[in-house]
C-alpha cells in the first residue's frame, strides 16, 4: 500500500508544489493521477520511490516511511517509468539495457538472462534483443523503457504520461497491457491528461490542482463532473459529452465509453417501444 500523510513538498528556493496531500492507494488498485500541467503530478509520484523527500508530512510504502529507506530499496517495489525514454536508454543493446537494473539489484546472471528473455517476449520486442536502443522508433523506445522497469517485476508500477505521441493502435495495446498488469495483481498508477484513454479503462481518478487533491472518485463518476474537470483543465470524454447533452432524454451520464453508450441507447429505444 502507498500512503501519504499531510504531504507537503517544495523545491529548494521555490514555492510549494504539493500542499497537503492525504492519499491511500491499496495494493492492486488501478489509479490515474490527472490534473493540469504544473499541478504536481510528477512531483507526487517521485515521493513514492524516495527520489523526493517530503518537506512536511510523510509517505509510507508498504508500511515503511520513505525517510527510513533509500531510492534503491524503494525502487524494488515501486517501478517508475519516466515520460521520455531518451532520459534512460544508454546501453549498446536492448538486452544490456534490461539487464542494467537487474545487475543493480544484485540478481544472478542466469536469472537475468531468463527474465530479460521473458519480458522481451511479453512486450513483443524479442526481435530487437541485440539491437541498439537508439535506432528504434519512438514508440519502440517507449516499450523498451517500459520493459526495462517491468523486468525486475516491481509490485507497484507508475507510468508517467505513457500515451503522449502514441497513435490509436499503440494506445489500444497499451491500455490492454495495463489492464493485464493490473489483473496480475500489480498496483498500476498512470499520470495522464488523456481523458479518452481513461474513459475506456475506468481507473480510480485522483484529480490534482495546484498541489492539492480536488477529486478522488471512480472514472465514471469524476469524468461527468463538468465543473471539477474544468478546474483541472480537462474536458469531458466525447461520449460523456454526448450523454450529458442528452441527459434530459433519460440517458445515463456515466456511460462514458462507446459500448456502455451503445447499450444505453438501445435500452432507451426499447423502452420507447
Amino acid at each position: 500500500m502507498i500512503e501519504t500523510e499531510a504531504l507537503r513538498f517544495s523545491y529548494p528556493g521555490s514555492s510549494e508544489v504539493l500542499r497537503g496531500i492525504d492519499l491511500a492507494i491499496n495494493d492492486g488498485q488501478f489509479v490515474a493521477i490527472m490534473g493540469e500541467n504544473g499541478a504536481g503530478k510528477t512531483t507526487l509520484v517521485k515521493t513514492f520511490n524516495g527520489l523526493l523527500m517530503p518537506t512536511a508530512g510523510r509517505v509510507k510504502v508498504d508500511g515503511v516511511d520513505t525517510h527510513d529507506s533509500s531510492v534503491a530499496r524503494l525502487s524494488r517495489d515501486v517501478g517508475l517509468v519516466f515520460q521520455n525514454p531518451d532520459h534512460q536508454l544508454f546501453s549498446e543493446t536492448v538486452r544490456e539495457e534490461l539487464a542494467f537494473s537487474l545487475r543493480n539489484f544484485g540478481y544472478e546472471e542466469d536469472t537475468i538472462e531468463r527474465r530479460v528473455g521473458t519480458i522481451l517476449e511479453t512486450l513483443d520486442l524479442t526481435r530487437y534483443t541485440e539491437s541498439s536502443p537508439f535506432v528504434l522508433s519512438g514508440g519502440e523506445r517507449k516499450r523498451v523503457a517500459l520493459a526495462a522497469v517491468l523486468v525486475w517485476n516491481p509490485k507497484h508500477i507508475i507510468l508517467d504520461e505513457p500515451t503522449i505521441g502514441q497513435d490509436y493502435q499503440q494506445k489500444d495495446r497499451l491500455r490492454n497491457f495495463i489492464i493485464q498488469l493490473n489483473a496480475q495483481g500489480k498496483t498500476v498508477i498512470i499520470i495522464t491528461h488523456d481523458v479518452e484513454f481513461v474513459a475506456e479503462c475506468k481507473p480510480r481518478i485522483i484529480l490534482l490542482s495546484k498541489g492539492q487533491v480536488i477529486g478522488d472518485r471512480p472514472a465514471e463518476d469524476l469524468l461527468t463532473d463538468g465543473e471539477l474537470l474544468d478546474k483541472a483543465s480537462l474536458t469531458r470524454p466525447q461520449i460523456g459529452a454526448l450523454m450529458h447533452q442528452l441527459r434530459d432524454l433519460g440517458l445515463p451520464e456515466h456511460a462514458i465509453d462507446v459500448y456502455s453508450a451503445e447499450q444505453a441507447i438501445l435500452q432507451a429505444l426499447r423502452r420507447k417501444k
Partner: protein
Amino acid sequence: MKGYMAQPRYGAQLENDSCLGPLHPLGTARGYKDLSIIQANHLTFTYTGASKPSVEDVSTTVSPGEFVVLTGPSGCGKTTICRCLNGLIPNFYSGDFAGELIVDGMNVKEHTTAELAAHVGMVFQNPENQLFSLSVERDVAFGPENLGLQREETRKRVDWALDVTGITHLKDKPPYELSGGQQQRAAIAAVLAMQPKVMILDEPTSFLDPKSALEILEVISDLNKKLKITIILVEHRLDIVSQHANRVIVMDNGKVVLDGTPRDVYGEQARLIGIGLPRVTTLFNLLQRDGLGLTQTPTTVDEAAGVLRKMLSR
C-alpha cells in the same frame, strides 16, 4: 481575435509592403493565386540508409484556404510529407527525392528551407524546443529578422502576430514561464510573423492538456477562416479536429489511402487501417450494425446529439 479587423486584409498587406526583403518572390505568389497552393506529383522519398521509401508515389493537390488533417498510424509518412513541404527535405534531411512538389509556386527541390520559410511555416510538436529567446516578443521577431526586414516592418508584424494569437499580454515573458498552451500560441505567432500562405502543424496538441488543446485548435481554425491560411494539421486525435477540417487525408505505409471530407473518410477502411475515429462515429457505426438504419455518420458531438435526439423523441 480582437484587433484583427483593424489590420488590412492579409493578402492586401503583402501587396502593399514595399520593404520586404529581396528573397520574397511576391510576383510568383501573386501569379499562382488561382491555382492549387500545393501540388504533389508522384512524390517519393527514401531517407539515406533506409531500405524502403517513407513516402511513396504521393500525388495530390491542395487548394488555397483548405483545412487539411493529415493522419495515419505511426510511421506512415506524415512527418516526412511535412518536412518535404517546408524544405527540410531535401535540405536538412538527405535522401533520394523523386517526383515533384510545388508549394506556393515554388519547386521545393530548387529552394533552400530559408527561402521557403516565408511561404510555408511549420509548428512542431514540442513547444520547448521551438522557443529559445528570453522573451516571447524576441522569439516572434526572430523570423522577420531573419528575412532581413526593416525594423518598423518587423515591429508591425510582431505586434500583429501577438494580437492574432491573443498573447500580447505575454510578450515580455520568457517562454519557459508560460503554460504549454501559451507556448504553442507563441510558436504559432512566431511562424505567423513570417506571413506564410501555408502553415503546417505537426501534432501541436501532443503535450497539451485537453482544454488547451481545444483552445489552440480554435486559434488555428481562426487563422484558416479569417486569414485564409492553408492549414495542414497532422493529428491522431480526430475527435477534436473533425469539426474544423474540411478534408482528411489518411496515409498508411507511405501511401495516401483515403482522401475526402471527414464523413467520407471515417468508414470501415479507416478503422481497419487503425486510425482513431471520433468516438461518436464509432458509436454510430456500432448502432448501425445493431440495425438502427441510420443514414448519417456524425463526426462531432453536436451532430450526434442532434440525430439521437430526433430518434429518441419520435
